[in-house]
């Protein structure tokens, strides 16, 4: 499958008073039409920063960006990183769109939702105000807002959180973009509303054959929507692969640690201790030598001659279509984890 978006060696850094913050480091990922890529990581792992770079939403003056983000358009491949602002403006909203975590702050409180949605249409189409508004009603109807022809004249504060997120989705999809980047779209919502929104995104993806990038910290959401997964830690992709590979035979100790640390509903975990990952993520200004995860890694001491604390591992193919940034091989990990489980319990 040819990929609609291919991000290649993306580096984003912010100079600050305290030093250079290396927010993402050689990040590469790709997503095809009709496919959902989940990018999962904790705060500060670089998952939002890399996608803001793809959308061209960083302030050029205070950000250093290098690398490529190829968008595969019928008219030819475009590199979003080196594109001029006016080129990006023509693509944003039309070919790629983004929705954000907090739908209240993403909507303007002074304008009706109809006006705001229609504005997105007018940017890429010529037509009367009436035509724009009619299109807005059509979109509100599509995203499941009841009584759309009336609600189109309401203001954002008259909608609930879930409905606002539907409005955002309507706005982002009004020009039929081929790529939707959803940055924690359900984090601010309640679980029952969250499952409605996730279902809506899935339905729309199927209907319009979109590529979707789902940025989230919630492995439950990942399991629900993703075809492929990138796990990020301290600005780097530490593991990437198909959904079942990541959940059932992950190679990287961080991925394994995250999955083990989750309290789970389905199996009764009553009375069991959670297997927590000790320590905290490193500062992005002052990353540890070698592997960024080494100070928290239960496996690091099993790798010979201090390799993990001296040499930064490369993203290597560990199994078919499964890559990890770790000095351990796939077989080493399962062997050692047999020995280690139980011994790594650390509060």
């Amino acid at each position, binding site marked *: 499958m040819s990929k609609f978006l291919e991000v290649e060696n993306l580096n984003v850094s912010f100079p600050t008073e305290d030093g250079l913050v290396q927010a993402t480091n050689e990040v590469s990922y790709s997503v095809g039409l009709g496919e959902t890529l989940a990018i999962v990581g*904790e*705060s500060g792992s670089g998952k939002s920063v890399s996608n803001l770079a793809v959308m061209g939403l960083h302030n050029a003056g205070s950000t250093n960006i290098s690398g490529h983000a190829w968008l595969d358009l019928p008219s030819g491949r475009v590199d979003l990183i080196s594109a001029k602002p006016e080129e990006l403006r023509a693509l944003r909203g039309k070919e790629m769109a983004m929705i954000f975590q907090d739908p209240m702050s993403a909507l303007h409180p002074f304008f009706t939702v109809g006006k705001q949605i229609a504005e997105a249409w007018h940017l890429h189409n010529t037509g009367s105000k009436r035509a724009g508004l009619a299109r807005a009603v059509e979109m509100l109807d599509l995203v499941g807002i009841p009584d759309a022809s009336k609600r189109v004249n309401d203001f954002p504060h008259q909608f*609930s*959180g*879930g*409905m606002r997120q539907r409005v955002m989705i309507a706005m982002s999809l009004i020009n039929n973009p081929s790529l939707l980047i959803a940055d924690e779209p359900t984090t601010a919502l*309640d*679980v*029952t*509303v*969250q*499952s*409605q929104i*996730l*279902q809506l995104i899935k339905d729309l993806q199927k209907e319009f054959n979109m590529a979707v990038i789902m940025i989230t*910290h*919630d*492995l*439950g*959401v*990942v*399991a*629900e929507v993703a075809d492929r997964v990138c796990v990020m830690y301290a600005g780097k992709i530490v593991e990437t692969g198909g*959904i*079942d590979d990541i*959940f*059932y035979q992950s190679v990287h100790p961080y991925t394994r*640690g*995250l*999955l083990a*640390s*989750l*309290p*789970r*509903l*389905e199996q*009764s*975990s*009553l009375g*069991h*201790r*959670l*297997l*927590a*990952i*000790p320590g*905290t*993520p490193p500062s992005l200004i002052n990353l540890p030598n070698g592997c960024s995860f080494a100070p928290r890694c239960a496996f690091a001491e099993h790798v010979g001659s201090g390799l993990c604390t001296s040499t930064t591992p490369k993203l290597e193919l560990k199994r078919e279509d499964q890559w990890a940034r770790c000095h351990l091989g796939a077989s080493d990990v399962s062997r050692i984890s047999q020995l280690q489980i139980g011994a790594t319990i650390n*509060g």
Partner: protein
Amino acid sequence: MAENILEVNNLKMHFEGKRGFSFGSETPVVKAVDGVTFNVKVGESVGLVGESGCGKTTVGRTVMKLYEPTSGEIIFQGQDISKLKPRAMKKYRSSMQMIFQDPFSSLNPRHTVGSIIESSFVIHGITPEGGVKEAVRGLLAKVGLNPEHINRFPHEFSGGQRQRIGIARALALNPKFIVADEPVSALDVSIQAQIVNLLDDLQKEFGIAFLFIAHDLSVVQHISDRVIVMYLGKIMEMAPTFDLFLKPRHPYTKALLSAVPVPDPKIGRAREKILLQGDLPSPANPPKGCVFNTRCWKAQDLCRTTVPEVLEIAPSHSLACHFPE
């Protein structure tokens, strides 16, 4: 059976809205908590779950007497504290403590960790054995922080460490009862498990009773002996954790459980999801009859007119539904 440390009877907490410009019309009343009855036994950990606006935080704050309840009883260690004035409350405060959600705003940025924890002793005029400083160091060690950091300020710590400071402060006076309001929801996934384990250990070590308020059902399941499910200010279902998660009887509990995304793709694909329609109604204008009837797929005429009572259907399993599963 162990005795109750806390007994809440028909607790109501109604907030009056502002009148604004609409002179003459009635002041809107938000019934955040509307007739809630439950108990917490000595050393027991009770989870309180529900979506935003269901009143779970208000219950926590009202039993701590941070709000003056509108009506109802709060019986703490055998004494009704619901009508006590702040001064009379003080002697109960040392045995009831609170842990907050946001470890950034719940610690004074201008005070050192030492003086934050110390203030518990100072306010209650207690001098622990071996002196206050020693006690603070001991507390820091107990929650997994370096006692040498006693003179640091909150901003020098990460989110997880700050939550540990909040826990140390709550533990200072050896409380018998702690309300933990979303103690891990502001933390990163890899840190959450550390704090959950810490709370688990402390509860076992000191036999503290917990009211654990959270929206994350998997965390609640892990840490609670019993779980209360709230919706729009009312209790929907109340049962031992195992029963509630395995055999939920209230349609809302069932829907809530099925909405939680499971971090296991195979199970996720296999299970049947109940997709609730619509949003939570406003607590200022709750539906008539059963508050859940507008989103319930089993609702019938009776549900729209008559409020179901909370009835015990099995030992310590209570339910407010006309047509339980």
